[in-house]
């Protein structure tokens, strides 16, 4: 493997003569690295970037005397200034479009632009959720077609489409479980989660009214089946398991776990965050799973958008399907896709499912993340059944390639037990004095990469979870591996310069303690600039 850095220069070799960083500039900018003030420092309340009619002060209003008189304090910019402000800000972000984004458990794959184009078709983007159903048949068909794909890909019985993101989907699945237990008069109170679980799992169980207990893990990084069986009993409502798990390993005993949980009268919730590793290769429905959310923004390529919006449909077993949330879509024998809301729910259930559907209720206004449904369906149709299977294979291949290319340098706790799935897990054992996983991560920033997921899962000390995804070429992986090896070698050698990394990002390390101790969560004007009225003096327009 050849490093792209042929000269072998390292940040640790930086000289003290100032030539490396060059002289200071008047603006604080450094060529294409541009500083950008806050909107409230460059805009003002009288500037606008839209052309709307001037307000007629003599017009009568019918707002019950509740006119907003005081200044709101919203700064505006003209259109060119607006575009420049946000374009400058955008350049301070790392993104998939710029390079490999190996965040474990986040599946940062390429976001196809066809998805964006389709989502913006007026028939999808410009449709109101409460239009008469005859005017939205295409939208209902999209929801139904996507539901059909999700059911077929997972081998499950039904799917709840309305959850807004993964954690909302988890909540949906747990509420289905609770509704099913209550329907049989069974008031179980405990949910078991592995220590390696995403934080959302125990938080969700608590929000659904359960207490949580840890499931012990075995030495091979998987659920300890015997210990789990010993804990099962009439108080266990459900077991929440991530498969592939957060150590990047497939839970080999999944079917046996499900059988044991079912035998004890409980349900199996599977966190589907890592579905990308197995899509088209194995169906969770064949492993006894009762509910699993699917992050459309992970496996099915809808954009992460700097933190959402996500979309978290939940596939459900036959036992849980009757309890899914309202509204839902259903295709009847005549081929028509119906929208079932509170109003028709009982009658529709009587007519089409012998009264079995007993929804636990509504989780959100309207019908879920339609804009994500169109994108995900576009992606599925593009890949097809064959392409999605190839997705899983390439994702797993890329992760194993990373694992085997680093295991001589970094502690890889489960490397001996076999292949990983879609992500490779390393720990900080062997790092030099005082150096931590955080230092290595910041060193990766200087190399031009977004760091891997760090300090998660909690079961591995100084964990680094690397998920390259299937949309990286071998060349891109080789360059990433060369950088990763270089920084790992520096960490092992105790290279103290890593403690100050990053050197070349728009910002050096940020003081998170200060941010939390004295929170500044909104902009406040300093004393007003000369000649400008203060906000309270401006009054309403």
């Amino acid at each position, binding site marked *: 493997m050849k490093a792209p850095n042929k000269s072998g220069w390292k940040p640790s070799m930086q000289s003290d003569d100032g030539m490396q960083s060059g002289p200071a500039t008047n603006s604080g900018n450094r060529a294409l690295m541009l500083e950008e003030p*806050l909107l409230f420092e460059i805009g003002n309340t009288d500037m606008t970037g839209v052309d709307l009619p001037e307000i007629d002060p003599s017009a009568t209003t019918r707002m019950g005397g509740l006119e907003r008189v005081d200044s709101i304090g919203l700064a505006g910019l003209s259109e060119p200034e607006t575009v420049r402000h946000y374009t400058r800000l955008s350049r301070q972000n790392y993104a998939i479009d710029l390079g490999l984004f190996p965040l474990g458990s986040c599946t940062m794959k390429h976001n196809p632009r066809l998805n964006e184009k389709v989502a913006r078709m007026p028939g999808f983007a410009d449709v109101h959720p409460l239009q008469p159903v005859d005017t939205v048949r295409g939208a209902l068909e999209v929801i139904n077609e996507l539901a059909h794909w999700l059911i077929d890909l997972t081998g499950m019985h039904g799917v709840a489409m309305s959850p807004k993101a993964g954690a909302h989907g988890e909540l949906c699945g747990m509420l289905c479980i609770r509704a099913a237990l209550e329907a049989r008069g069974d008031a179980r109170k405990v949910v078991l989660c592995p220590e390696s679980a995403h934080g959302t799992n125990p938080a969700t169980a608590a929000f659904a009214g359960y207490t949580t207990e840890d499931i012990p893990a075995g030495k091979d990084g998987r659920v300890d089946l015997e210990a789990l069986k010993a804990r099962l009993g009439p108080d266990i409502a459900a077991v929440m398991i991530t498969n592939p798990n957060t150590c990047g390993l497939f839970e080999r005993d999944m079917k046996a776990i499900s059988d044991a949980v079912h035998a004890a009268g409980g349900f199996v919730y599977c966190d589907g965050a890592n579905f990308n590793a197995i899509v088209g290769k194995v169906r969770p429905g064949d492993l006894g799973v009762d509910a699993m959310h699917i992050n459309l923004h992970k496996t099915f390529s809808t954009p992460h958008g*700097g933190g959402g919006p996500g979309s978290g449909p939940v596939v459900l077993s036959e036992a849980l399907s009757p309890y899914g949330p309202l509204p839902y879509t259903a295709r009847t024998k005549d081929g028509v896709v119906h929208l079932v809301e509170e109003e028709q729910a009982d009658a529709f259930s009587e007519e089409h499912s012998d009264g079995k559907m007993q929804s636990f209720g509504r989780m959100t206004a309207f019908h879920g993340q339609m804009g994500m449904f169109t994108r995900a369906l576009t992606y599925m149709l593009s890949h097809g059944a064959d392409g999605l299977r190839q997705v899983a294979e390439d994702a797993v291949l890329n992760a194993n390639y990373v694992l085997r290319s680093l295991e001589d340098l970094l502690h890889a706790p489960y490397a001996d037990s076999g292949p990983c799935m879609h992500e490779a897990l390393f720990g900080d054992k062997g790092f030099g004095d005082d150096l931590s996983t955080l230092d290595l991560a910041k060193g990766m920033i200087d190399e031009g990469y977004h760091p891997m997921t760090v300090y998660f899962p909690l079961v591995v000390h100084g964990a680094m979870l690397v998920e390259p995804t299937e949309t990286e070429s071998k060349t891109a992986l080789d360059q990433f591996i060369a950088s990763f090896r270089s920084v790992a070698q520096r960490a092992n050698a105790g290279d103290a310069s890593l403690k100050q990394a990053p050197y070349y990002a728009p910002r050096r390390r*940020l003081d998170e303690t200060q941010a939390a101790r004295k*929170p500044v969560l909104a902009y406040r004007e300093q004393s007003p600039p000369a000649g400008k009225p203060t906000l309270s003096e401006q009054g309403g327009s």
Partner: protein
Amino acid sequence: MRYLPLTDTDRSDMLATIGADTIDDLFSDVPEEARLDGPIRGLPMHASEMAVEKHMRLLSKKNLAASDAAFFLGAGAYKHHVPASVDHIIQRGEFLTAYTPYQPEIAQGTLQMLFEFQTQVARLYGCAVANASMYDGSTACWEAVAMAGRVTKRSRAVLSGALHPHYAEVVKTMAKFTGDTIAGASPSIQPEPDTAGLIARIDDDTSCVVVQYPDILGRVNDLNEIADAAHAKGALLVVVNTEPVALGALKAPGDMGADIVVGEGQSIGVGLQFGGPYLGLFAVRDPKHVRQMPGRLCGETTDAEGKRGFVLTLSTREQHIRREKATSNICTNSGLCALAFSVHMTLLGEKGLRQLAAENHRLACLAADKLAAIPGVEVLNTAFFNEFTITVKTDARAMVRKLADKNVLAGVSLARLFPNVDTLSSRLLVAVTETTSEADIETLCSALKEELS
């Protein structure tokens, strides 16, 4: 398969490096009986960009786009003009394809934007602090009820009957599982909200009173009286707003004593999208309540060289640190919709927002007057912003369906929103925005005249 860069040669080279013979060796932990032997049957194979686009375009054509009709729907989702530059900016890859800003040194773009967004929302709502967004207005509403429970250590929430019924349903659904008590009510169909009736329902166990402003019938009223009554009983006032444009003309909830203000931000920058993704807004008036807030918060700090920068902060409230003791299980929020909101709000500025609000109100007044002049139509509201309720001398829901065939989307019938309330069959909620032309209003009026004659 255009999204997969590996070639077959790459694949075999990489398998050799790994020391595996076939790709199936890497799936050896999957029990053999569960492994699928080929592509899942019954699903289509991969398709070209052209073929997929065509398939999706045909589906999209089966919907009536709002812009192709005379359009008067609201009830929590509003059709507004979104400037072209908003959509351009949210499609920049550095925003679109970034993750949650957990590595702040290379996410200052998203973080500074969120700090500006939080400031915009807080000011719009008349509050001290807003978070970095929630899924949508309805889930933000439940999170506000849950937060009020944590603050007051009480578990009985009183909902106004004029709260959006979907929001009320979400709150009631969640409360079934958390053990909270929700006192709901049917909407009272009067020209003005039933403030006295609402206040009478507040007792010493009440954690919060939840009111919508403008309410589901489009009515607006001073909230100070309700705030005082709630505070006198030790309860919080939660105000829900589903039309942020209204706050460019109407007093802010935070300035009338609301403790938690939540709402739907879709009107600014996001678009209709058949109901999602939307943008949940969440703010508190008193900074002392910040540590009980759900969701992500972005805060200002400095870097090692003393430069100003931004980070996600107070994360000890959140699930990834606090696990089962977190204030919410929320993780992903609505980052890109928050960006769209923030860019649109920047383009508007206070001047543009006020003009936008005034234009909405002007056209709504015009529409209300023209509708009221039609025999068989009555306008219910005394006061409103851009949405009001009318009574028609026929079944409103059937009429809406019928008019849709003539490309008139006349409004949202209250019978659709409140299916179990018999007395609402003749009521119709009509929303008017800057996208409504005077010709559209004429079209609606003549369609109604024809129906009612």
